[in-house]
Protein backbone atom coordinates (compact mmCIF):
# COMPACT_ATOMS: atom_id res chain seq x y z
CA UNK A 1 0.00 0.00 0.00
CA UNK A 2 2.72 2.39 1.00
CA UNK A 3 4.74 1.50 -2.02
CA UNK A 4 1.75 2.18 -4.17
CA UNK A 5 1.41 5.60 -2.68
CA UNK A 6 5.07 6.36 -3.22
CA UNK A 7 5.52 5.20 -6.77
CA UNK A 8 2.33 5.89 -8.58
CA UNK A 9 2.63 9.37 -10.10
CA UNK A 10 -1.10 9.99 -9.86
CA UNK A 11 -0.72 10.01 -6.08
CA UNK A 12 1.79 12.78 -6.10
CA UNK A 13 -0.72 15.58 -5.77
CA UNK A 14 -2.15 13.73 -2.82
CA UNK A 15 1.19 13.61 -1.13
CA UNK A 16 1.91 17.20 -1.86
CA UNK A 17 -1.47 18.12 -0.43
CA UNK A 18 -0.46 16.24 2.65
CA UNK A 19 2.46 18.55 3.22
CA UNK A 20 1.50 21.24 5.70
CA UNK A 21 4.14 23.56 4.39
CA UNK A 22 2.92 23.37 0.80
CA UNK A 23 -0.64 23.84 1.99
CA UNK A 24 0.28 26.83 4.08
CA UNK A 25 1.96 28.57 1.19
CA UNK A 26 -0.70 27.68 -1.36
CA UNK A 27 -3.56 28.68 0.87
CA UNK A 28 -1.77 31.93 1.53
CA UNK A 29 -2.10 32.65 -2.17
CA UNK A 30 -5.78 31.66 -2.35
CA UNK A 31 -6.91 33.45 0.75
CA UNK A 32 -7.08 37.07 -0.44
CA UNK A 33 -9.12 36.14 -3.50
CA UNK A 34 -11.46 33.91 -1.61
CA UNK A 35 -12.01 36.48 1.10
CA UNK A 36 -12.75 39.11 -1.47
CA UNK A 37 -15.23 36.83 -3.20
CA UNK A 38 -16.92 35.90 0.07
CA UNK A 39 -17.18 39.51 1.11
CA UNK A 40 -18.71 40.67 -2.17
CA UNK A 41 -21.20 37.83 -2.29
CA UNK A 42 -22.26 38.25 1.31
CA UNK A 43 -22.62 42.01 0.98
CA UNK A 44 -24.58 41.72 -2.26
CA UNK A 45 -26.80 39.04 -0.85
CA UNK A 46 -27.44 40.93 2.35
CA UNK A 47 -28.26 44.24 0.74
CA UNK A 48 -30.39 42.56 -1.88
CA UNK A 49 -32.17 40.30 0.55
CA UNK A 50 -32.72 42.75 3.36
CA UNK A 51 -33.29 45.84 1.28
CA UNK A 52 -34.79 44.90 -2.05
CA UNK A 53 -36.42 41.49 -1.97
CA UNK A 54 -40.22 41.68 -1.70
CA UNK A 55 -41.93 41.32 1.65
CA UNK A 56 -43.47 37.97 2.51
CA UNK A 57 -47.24 37.97 2.35
CA UNK A 58 -47.78 36.11 5.62
CA UNK A 59 -44.68 36.76 7.66
CA UNK A 60 -43.91 40.34 6.75
CA UNK A 61 -40.34 41.39 7.24
CA UNK A 62 -39.49 38.72 9.77
CA UNK A 63 -38.96 36.23 6.98
CA UNK A 64 -35.79 38.08 5.99
CA UNK A 65 -33.89 36.17 8.60
CA UNK A 66 -34.05 33.35 6.09
CA UNK A 67 -31.06 34.90 4.37
CA UNK A 68 -28.99 34.10 7.37
CA UNK A 69 -30.76 31.05 8.66
CA UNK A 70 -30.79 28.83 5.62
CA UNK A 71 -27.16 29.24 4.49
CA UNK A 72 -25.92 28.85 8.03
CA UNK A 73 -27.98 25.70 8.54
CA UNK A 74 -26.76 24.22 5.27
CA UNK A 75 -23.17 24.78 6.18
CA UNK A 76 -23.54 23.53 9.70
CA UNK A 77 -24.59 20.18 8.30
CA UNK A 78 -22.15 20.14 5.40
CA UNK A 79 -19.37 21.14 7.80
CA UNK A 80 -19.93 18.02 9.83
CA UNK A 81 -19.45 15.83 6.84
CA UNK A 82 -16.37 17.75 5.79
CA UNK A 83 -14.98 17.21 9.26
CA UNK A 84 -15.80 13.51 9.27
CA UNK A 85 -14.29 12.97 5.84
CA UNK A 86 -11.14 14.81 6.86
CA UNK A 87 -10.97 12.59 9.94
CA UNK A 88 -11.44 9.44 7.87
CA UNK A 89 -8.67 10.46 5.48
CA UNK A 90 -6.44 11.09 8.46
CA UNK A 91 -7.19 7.69 9.94
CA UNK A 92 -6.73 5.79 6.71
CA UNK A 93 -3.76 7.55 5.13
CA UNK A 94 -2.26 8.87 8.37
CA UNK A 95 -2.15 12.33 6.85
CA UNK A 96 -1.25 15.06 9.32
CA UNK A 97 -2.80 17.87 7.33
CA UNK A 98 -6.09 16.09 7.16
CA UNK A 99 -6.29 16.00 10.93
CA UNK A 100 -5.52 19.68 11.04
CA UNK A 101 -8.44 20.38 8.70
CA UNK A 102 -10.65 18.22 10.88
CA UNK A 103 -9.54 20.04 13.97
CA UNK A 104 -10.22 23.38 12.29
CA UNK A 105 -13.65 22.31 11.06
CA UNK A 106 -14.93 21.52 14.55
CA UNK A 107 -15.07 25.03 16.06
CA UNK A 108 -16.26 26.56 12.78
CA UNK A 109 -18.99 23.99 12.49
CA UNK A 110 -20.01 24.33 16.11
CA UNK A 111 -20.28 28.09 15.74
CA UNK A 112 -22.39 27.74 12.60
CA UNK A 113 -24.66 25.20 14.25
CA UNK A 114 -25.13 27.52 17.16
CA UNK A 115 -25.96 30.33 14.75
CA UNK A 116 -28.46 28.12 12.95
CA UNK A 117 -30.16 27.31 16.22
CA UNK A 118 -30.10 30.90 17.31
CA UNK A 119 -31.48 32.35 14.08
CA UNK A 120 -34.07 29.59 13.99
CA UNK A 121 -35.14 30.33 17.55
CA UNK A 122 -35.36 34.04 16.87
CA UNK A 123 -37.42 33.31 13.81
CA UNK A 124 -39.57 30.87 15.72
CA UNK A 125 -40.93 33.53 18.04
CA UNK A 126 -42.87 35.48 15.38
CA UNK A 127 -43.86 32.45 13.29
CA UNK A 128 -44.53 29.69 15.80
CA UNK A 129 -45.14 31.85 18.81
CA UNK A 130 -42.39 30.15 20.77
CA UNK A 131 -38.64 30.01 20.64
CA UNK A 132 -38.44 26.28 20.70
CA UNK A 133 -40.31 23.24 19.43
CA UNK A 134 -39.20 19.63 19.28
CA UNK A 135 -39.44 19.25 15.55
CA UNK A 136 -37.33 16.76 13.62
CA UNK A 137 -35.01 19.24 12.00
CA UNK A 138 -34.65 21.38 15.08
CA UNK A 139 -33.90 18.39 17.27
CA UNK A 140 -31.39 16.92 14.89
CA UNK A 141 -29.69 20.30 14.69
CA UNK A 142 -29.41 20.39 18.48
CA UNK A 143 -27.93 16.93 18.49
CA UNK A 144 -25.52 18.01 15.79
CA UNK A 145 -24.38 20.76 18.12
CA UNK A 146 -23.81 18.18 20.84
CA UNK A 147 -21.76 16.06 18.48
CA UNK A 148 -19.63 19.05 17.56
CA UNK A 149 -19.14 19.93 21.21
CA UNK A 150 -18.25 16.35 22.03
CA UNK A 151 -15.59 16.33 19.34
CA UNK A 152 -14.20 19.64 20.53
CA UNK A 153 -14.13 18.49 24.13
CA UNK A 154 -12.51 15.19 23.23
CA UNK A 155 -9.87 16.90 21.14
CA UNK A 156 -8.80 19.12 23.98
CA UNK A 157 -9.12 16.50 26.68
CA UNK A 158 -6.21 14.50 25.29
CA UNK A 159 -2.70 15.52 26.19
CA UNK A 160 -1.24 14.05 23.09
CA UNK A 161 -2.16 15.63 19.80
CA UNK A 162 -2.02 12.37 17.98
CA UNK A 163 -4.36 10.60 20.36
CA UNK A 164 -6.73 13.57 20.34
CA UNK A 165 -6.83 13.61 16.57
CA UNK A 166 -7.49 9.92 16.21
CA UNK A 167 -10.09 9.93 18.95
CA UNK A 168 -12.05 12.78 17.46
CA UNK A 169 -11.82 11.20 14.02
CA UNK A 170 -13.32 7.99 15.37
CA UNK A 171 -16.06 9.90 17.13
CA UNK A 172 -16.79 11.98 14.03
CA UNK A 173 -17.15 8.84 11.97
CA UNK A 174 -19.45 7.18 14.47
CA UNK A 175 -21.49 10.39 14.57
CA UNK A 176 -21.86 10.42 10.80
CA UNK A 177 -24.10 7.40 10.98
CA UNK A 178 -26.04 9.07 13.71
CA UNK A 179 -27.18 12.26 12.00
CA UNK A 180 -29.43 10.71 9.36
CA UNK A 181 -30.75 8.19 11.87
CA UNK A 182 -31.64 10.94 14.28
CA UNK A 183 -33.28 12.95 11.56
CA UNK A 184 -35.33 10.05 10.30
CA UNK A 185 -36.25 8.82 13.74
CA UNK A 186 -37.34 12.15 15.10
CA UNK A 187 -39.34 12.81 11.99
CA UNK A 188 -40.97 9.43 12.21
CA UNK A 189 -41.50 9.67 15.95
CA UNK A 190 -43.06 13.07 15.76
CA UNK A 191 -45.49 12.13 13.04
CA UNK A 192 -46.43 9.03 14.98
CA UNK A 193 -47.90 11.11 17.73
CA UNK A 194 -49.47 13.97 15.91
CA UNK A 195 -49.81 15.30 12.42
CA UNK A 196 -47.10 17.61 11.26
CA UNK A 197 -48.45 20.95 12.31
CA UNK A 198 -45.14 22.66 11.91
CA UNK A 199 -42.95 22.05 8.94
CA UNK A 200 -39.87 24.07 8.25
CA UNK A 201 -40.59 23.90 4.59
CA UNK A 202 -43.99 25.45 5.04
CA UNK A 203 -43.00 28.36 2.84
CA UNK A 204 -44.64 27.54 -0.47
CA UNK A 205 -42.29 27.43 -3.40
CA UNK A 206 -40.47 30.66 -3.08
CA UNK A 207 -40.87 33.66 -5.29
CA UNK A 208 -37.82 33.96 -7.56
CA UNK A 209 -37.20 37.51 -6.34
CA UNK A 210 -36.82 36.14 -2.83
CA UNK A 211 -34.90 33.09 -3.93
CA UNK A 212 -32.15 34.76 -5.96
CA UNK A 213 -30.61 36.64 -3.04
CA UNK A 214 -30.86 33.46 -1.00
CA UNK A 215 -28.79 31.65 -3.59
CA UNK A 216 -26.22 34.42 -3.53
CA UNK A 217 -26.06 34.18 0.23
CA UNK A 218 -25.63 30.42 0.14
CA UNK A 219 -22.75 30.61 -2.26
CA UNK A 220 -21.31 33.49 -0.26
CA UNK A 221 -21.50 31.48 2.92
CA UNK A 222 -19.75 28.56 1.29
CA UNK A 223 -16.89 30.90 0.37
CA UNK A 224 -16.90 32.34 3.85
CA UNK A 225 -16.78 28.85 5.31
CA UNK A 226 -13.80 27.99 3.17
CA UNK A 227 -12.02 31.14 4.29
CA UNK A 228 -12.72 30.39 7.94
CA UNK A 229 -11.60 26.80 7.54
CA UNK A 230 -8.38 27.88 5.85
CA UNK A 231 -7.64 30.44 8.54
CA UNK A 232 -8.15 27.96 11.35
CA UNK A 233 -6.13 25.31 9.54
CA UNK A 234 -3.27 27.73 8.95
CA UNK A 235 -3.23 28.71 12.59
CA UNK A 236 -3.15 25.04 13.50
CA UNK A 237 -0.33 24.38 11.03
CA UNK A 238 1.76 27.13 12.57
CA UNK A 239 1.09 25.84 16.05
CA UNK A 240 1.88 22.26 15.15
CA UNK A 241 4.95 23.01 13.07
CA UNK A 242 6.28 25.76 15.30
CA UNK A 243 9.57 23.96 15.68
CA UNK A 244 10.20 23.39 12.01
CA UNK A 245 12.69 25.49 10.13
CA UNK A 246 10.27 27.08 7.72
CA UNK A 247 7.95 28.33 10.45
CA UNK A 248 10.89 29.79 12.33
CA UNK A 249 12.01 31.57 9.19
CA UNK A 250 8.49 32.85 8.77
CA UNK A 251 8.40 34.14 12.32
CA UNK A 252 11.73 35.89 11.80
CA UNK A 253 10.20 37.87 8.96
CA UNK A 254 10.97 35.54 6.10
CA UNK A 255 9.48 35.96 2.66
CA UNK A 256 5.97 37.33 2.92
CA UNK A 257 3.29 34.92 1.77
Amino acid at each position, binding site marked *: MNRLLNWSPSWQWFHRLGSPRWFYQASGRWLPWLSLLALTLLLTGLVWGLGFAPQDAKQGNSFRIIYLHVPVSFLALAGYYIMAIAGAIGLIWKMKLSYMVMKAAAPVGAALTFLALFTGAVWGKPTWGTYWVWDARVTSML*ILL*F*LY*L*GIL*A*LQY*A*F*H*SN*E*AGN*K*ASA*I*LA*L*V*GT*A*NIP*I*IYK*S*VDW*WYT*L*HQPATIKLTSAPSMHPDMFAPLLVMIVGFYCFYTVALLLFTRAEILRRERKSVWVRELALGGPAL
Partner: protein
Amino acid sequence: MHGGFSAYLRRDLLLAYRRRGEAASPLIFFIMVSTLIPLGITPESGRLAEIAPGIIWVMALLATLLSTDGLFANDYQDGSLEQLLISPQLLAMPVLGKVTAHWMVTGLPLTLVSPLLGVMLSLPQEGYLPLLASLALGTACLSLIGAVGAALTVSLRRGGLLLSLLVMPLYMPVIIFGSATVQSAIDGFVWFGPLAILGAMLAAAVALCPLASAGALRLASIN
Protein backbone atom coordinates in the same frame (compact mmCIF):
# COMPACT_ATOMS: atom_id res chain seq x y z
CA MET B 1 -10.15 -19.19 23.95
CA HIS B 2 -12.47 -18.14 21.10
CA GLY B 3 -10.25 -15.15 20.55
CA GLY B 4 -10.62 -14.05 24.15
CA PHE B 5 -14.37 -13.50 24.06
CA SER B 6 -15.41 -16.05 26.62
CA ALA B 7 -12.32 -15.54 28.77
CA TYR B 8 -13.07 -11.87 29.23
CA LEU B 9 -16.77 -12.50 29.63
CA ARG B 10 -16.08 -14.92 32.46
CA ARG B 11 -13.52 -12.73 34.12
CA ASP B 12 -15.71 -9.65 34.13
CA LEU B 13 -18.64 -11.64 35.49
CA LEU B 14 -16.40 -12.94 38.26
CA LEU B 15 -15.21 -9.43 39.06
CA ALA B 16 -18.80 -8.21 39.18
CA TYR B 17 -19.72 -11.11 41.43
CA ARG B 18 -16.91 -10.22 43.82
CA ARG B 19 -18.30 -6.76 44.21
CA ARG B 20 -21.94 -7.66 44.25
CA GLY B 21 -22.84 -4.49 46.10
CA GLU B 22 -21.35 -2.36 43.38
CA ALA B 23 -22.76 -4.46 40.60
CA ALA B 24 -26.28 -4.01 41.95
CA SER B 25 -25.90 -0.26 41.99
CA PRO B 26 -27.27 0.51 38.52
CA LEU B 27 -30.35 -1.42 39.48
CA ILE B 28 -30.81 0.45 42.70
CA PHE B 29 -30.08 3.71 40.95
CA PHE B 30 -32.78 2.86 38.43
CA ILE B 31 -35.32 2.14 41.14
CA MET B 32 -34.32 5.08 43.29
CA VAL B 33 -34.46 7.70 40.58
CA SER B 34 -37.76 6.39 39.40
CA THR B 35 -39.09 7.04 42.86
CA LEU B 36 -37.68 10.57 42.77
CA ILE B 37 -39.87 11.31 39.80
CA PRO B 38 -43.20 11.23 41.61
CA LEU B 39 -41.62 13.42 44.29
CA GLY B 40 -40.30 15.96 41.86
CA ILE B 41 -43.03 15.92 39.25
CA THR B 42 -46.41 14.65 40.21
CA PRO B 43 -47.88 11.89 42.32
CA GLU B 44 -51.12 11.65 40.30
CA SER B 45 -51.35 8.24 38.69
CA GLY B 46 -53.10 9.55 35.59
CA ARG B 47 -50.33 11.92 34.75
CA LEU B 48 -47.67 9.45 35.81
CA ALA B 49 -49.08 6.89 33.41
CA GLU B 50 -48.62 9.30 30.54
CA ILE B 51 -44.98 9.85 31.20
CA ALA B 52 -44.13 6.37 32.52
CA PRO B 53 -42.69 4.81 29.32
CA GLY B 54 -40.47 7.78 28.71
CA ILE B 55 -39.32 8.04 32.30
CA ILE B 56 -38.48 4.37 32.59
CA TRP B 57 -36.51 4.52 29.38
CA VAL B 58 -34.65 7.68 30.33
CA MET B 59 -33.70 6.19 33.67
CA ALA B 60 -32.58 2.91 32.13
CA LEU B 61 -30.43 4.93 29.79
CA LEU B 62 -28.88 6.93 32.61
CA ALA B 63 -28.24 3.85 34.71
CA THR B 64 -26.45 2.15 31.82
CA LEU B 65 -24.52 5.30 31.00
CA LEU B 66 -23.23 5.67 34.52
CA SER B 67 -21.98 2.15 34.79
CA THR B 68 -20.37 2.30 31.35
CA ASP B 69 -17.74 4.59 32.79
CA GLY B 70 -16.07 1.71 34.58
CA LEU B 71 -16.00 -0.61 31.60
CA PHE B 72 -12.31 -0.11 30.82
CA ALA B 73 -11.26 2.35 33.53
CA ASN B 74 -10.22 -0.26 36.09
CA ASP B 75 -8.28 -2.19 33.52
CA TYR B 76 -6.51 0.95 32.46
CA GLN B 77 -5.51 1.93 35.96
CA ASP B 78 -4.09 -1.38 37.03
CA GLY B 79 -2.25 -2.04 33.80
CA SER B 80 -4.45 -4.89 32.55
CA LEU B 81 -5.44 -2.86 29.52
CA GLU B 82 -1.83 -2.52 28.47
CA GLN B 83 -1.50 -6.29 28.70
CA LEU B 84 -4.63 -6.70 26.62
CA LEU B 85 -3.31 -4.34 23.97
CA ILE B 86 -0.18 -6.39 23.48
CA SER B 87 -1.95 -9.74 23.48
CA PRO B 88 -1.86 -11.48 20.12
CA GLN B 89 -5.59 -11.95 19.64
CA LEU B 90 -7.89 -9.55 17.80
CA LEU B 91 -8.81 -6.81 20.19
CA ALA B 92 -12.47 -6.70 19.19
CA MET B 93 -13.27 -10.10 20.66
CA PRO B 94 -12.22 -9.38 24.26
CA VAL B 95 -14.01 -6.06 23.96
CA LEU B 96 -17.18 -7.80 22.91
CA GLY B 97 -16.76 -10.18 25.83
CA LYS B 98 -16.44 -7.31 28.27
CA VAL B 99 -19.46 -5.53 26.79
CA THR B 100 -21.52 -8.69 27.03
CA ALA B 101 -20.59 -9.04 30.68
CA HIS B 102 -21.48 -5.41 31.22
CA TRP B 103 -24.89 -5.91 29.69
CA MET B 104 -25.47 -9.03 31.76
CA VAL B 105 -24.85 -7.15 34.99
CA THR B 106 -26.64 -3.91 34.09
CA GLY B 107 -29.03 -4.05 31.14
CA LEU B 108 -30.40 -7.48 31.84
CA PRO B 109 -31.29 -6.92 35.53
CA LEU B 110 -32.70 -3.52 34.59
CA THR B 111 -34.93 -5.17 32.04
CA LEU B 112 -36.07 -7.82 34.46
CA VAL B 113 -36.93 -5.34 37.16
CA SER B 114 -38.67 -2.86 34.87
CA PRO B 115 -42.20 -4.29 35.33
CA LEU B 116 -41.90 -3.37 39.00
CA LEU B 117 -41.30 0.24 38.05
CA GLY B 118 -44.14 -0.01 35.59
CA VAL B 119 -46.40 -0.79 38.54
CA MET B 120 -44.95 2.06 40.58
CA LEU B 121 -45.48 4.54 37.76
CA SER B 122 -48.93 3.17 36.82
CA LEU B 123 -47.91 1.95 33.38
CA PRO B 124 -50.97 0.66 31.50
CA GLN B 125 -51.35 -3.08 31.10
CA GLU B 126 -50.51 -3.25 27.40
CA GLY B 127 -47.13 -1.67 27.99
CA TYR B 128 -45.37 -4.41 29.93
CA LEU B 129 -44.41 -6.83 27.20
CA PRO B 130 -43.14 -4.14 24.82
CA LEU B 131 -41.28 -2.55 27.73
CA LEU B 132 -39.46 -5.78 28.45
CA ALA B 133 -38.69 -6.49 24.82
CA SER B 134 -37.53 -2.99 23.99
CA LEU B 135 -35.39 -2.71 27.11
CA ALA B 136 -33.71 -6.03 26.42
CA LEU B 137 -32.68 -5.00 22.91
CA GLY B 138 -32.15 -1.36 23.71
CA THR B 139 -29.90 -1.75 26.74
CA ALA B 140 -27.67 -4.05 24.71
CA CYS B 141 -27.35 -1.27 22.13
CA LEU B 142 -26.60 1.19 24.89
CA SER B 143 -23.86 -0.99 26.32
CA LEU B 144 -22.25 -1.38 22.92
CA ILE B 145 -22.39 2.30 22.05
CA GLY B 146 -21.25 3.21 25.54
CA ALA B 147 -18.22 1.00 25.10
CA VAL B 148 -17.01 3.22 22.27
CA GLY B 149 -17.29 6.27 24.49
CA ALA B 150 -15.67 4.50 27.41
CA ALA B 151 -12.80 3.40 25.21
CA LEU B 152 -12.30 6.92 23.87
CA THR B 153 -12.16 8.46 27.32
CA VAL B 154 -10.32 5.73 29.18
CA SER B 155 -6.96 7.46 29.32
CA LEU B 156 -8.45 10.75 30.48
CA ARG B 157 -8.55 10.80 34.21
CA ARG B 158 -12.16 10.97 35.38
CA GLY B 159 -13.71 11.03 31.98
CA GLY B 160 -17.10 10.04 33.42
CA LEU B 161 -19.02 13.08 32.44
CA LEU B 162 -17.13 13.74 29.25
CA LEU B 163 -18.26 10.27 28.38
CA SER B 164 -21.87 11.33 28.71
CA LEU B 165 -21.30 14.21 26.34
CA LEU B 166 -19.88 11.83 23.78
CA VAL B 167 -22.39 9.05 23.92
CA MET B 168 -25.61 10.83 24.76
CA PRO B 169 -26.17 12.02 21.17
CA LEU B 170 -25.53 8.49 19.99
CA TYR B 171 -28.04 7.17 22.50
CA MET B 172 -30.87 9.34 21.26
CA PRO B 173 -32.15 7.09 18.46
CA VAL B 174 -32.25 4.19 20.89
CA ILE B 175 -34.39 6.05 23.36
CA ILE B 176 -36.70 7.36 20.66
CA PHE B 177 -37.46 3.91 19.33
CA GLY B 178 -37.43 2.36 22.77
CA SER B 179 -40.05 4.59 24.23
CA ALA B 180 -41.93 4.63 20.93
CA THR B 181 -42.29 0.85 21.16
CA VAL B 182 -43.97 1.10 24.53
CA GLN B 183 -45.99 4.17 23.64
CA SER B 184 -47.41 2.70 20.46
CA ALA B 185 -48.41 -0.44 22.32
CA ILE B 186 -50.25 1.70 24.86
CA ASP B 187 -51.88 3.73 22.15
CA GLY B 188 -53.03 0.52 20.51
CA PHE B 189 -50.77 0.55 17.48
CA VAL B 190 -48.56 -2.29 16.33
CA TRP B 191 -45.30 -2.10 18.17
CA PHE B 192 -43.22 -4.48 16.10
CA GLY B 193 -42.11 -1.70 13.80
CA PRO B 194 -40.04 0.29 16.29
CA LEU B 195 -38.90 -2.91 17.95
CA ALA B 196 -37.62 -4.22 14.65
CA ILE B 197 -35.69 -1.01 14.14
CA LEU B 198 -34.17 -1.45 17.59
CA GLY B 199 -33.18 -4.95 16.56
CA ALA B 200 -31.56 -3.64 13.40
CA MET B 201 -29.66 -1.04 15.39
CA LEU B 202 -28.46 -3.76 17.73
CA ALA B 203 -27.21 -5.85 14.83
CA ALA B 204 -25.32 -2.89 13.41
CA ALA B 205 -23.92 -2.03 16.83
CA VAL B 206 -22.70 -5.59 17.43
CA ALA B 207 -20.86 -5.47 14.15
CA LEU B 208 -19.32 -2.02 14.42
CA CYS B 209 -18.97 -0.93 18.03
CA PRO B 210 -16.40 -3.52 19.14
CA LEU B 211 -14.19 -2.52 16.23
CA ALA B 212 -14.51 1.17 16.97
CA SER B 213 -13.82 0.53 20.66
CA ALA B 214 -10.79 -1.54 19.82
CA GLY B 215 -9.43 1.29 17.69
CA ALA B 216 -10.11 3.78 20.45
CA LEU B 217 -8.45 1.63 23.10
CA ARG B 218 -5.20 1.69 21.18
CA LEU B 219 -5.12 5.44 21.73
CA ALA B 220 -4.94 4.95 25.46
CA SER B 221 -1.35 3.87 25.28
CA ILE B 222 -0.32 6.83 23.16
CA ASN B 223 -1.70 9.40 25.54
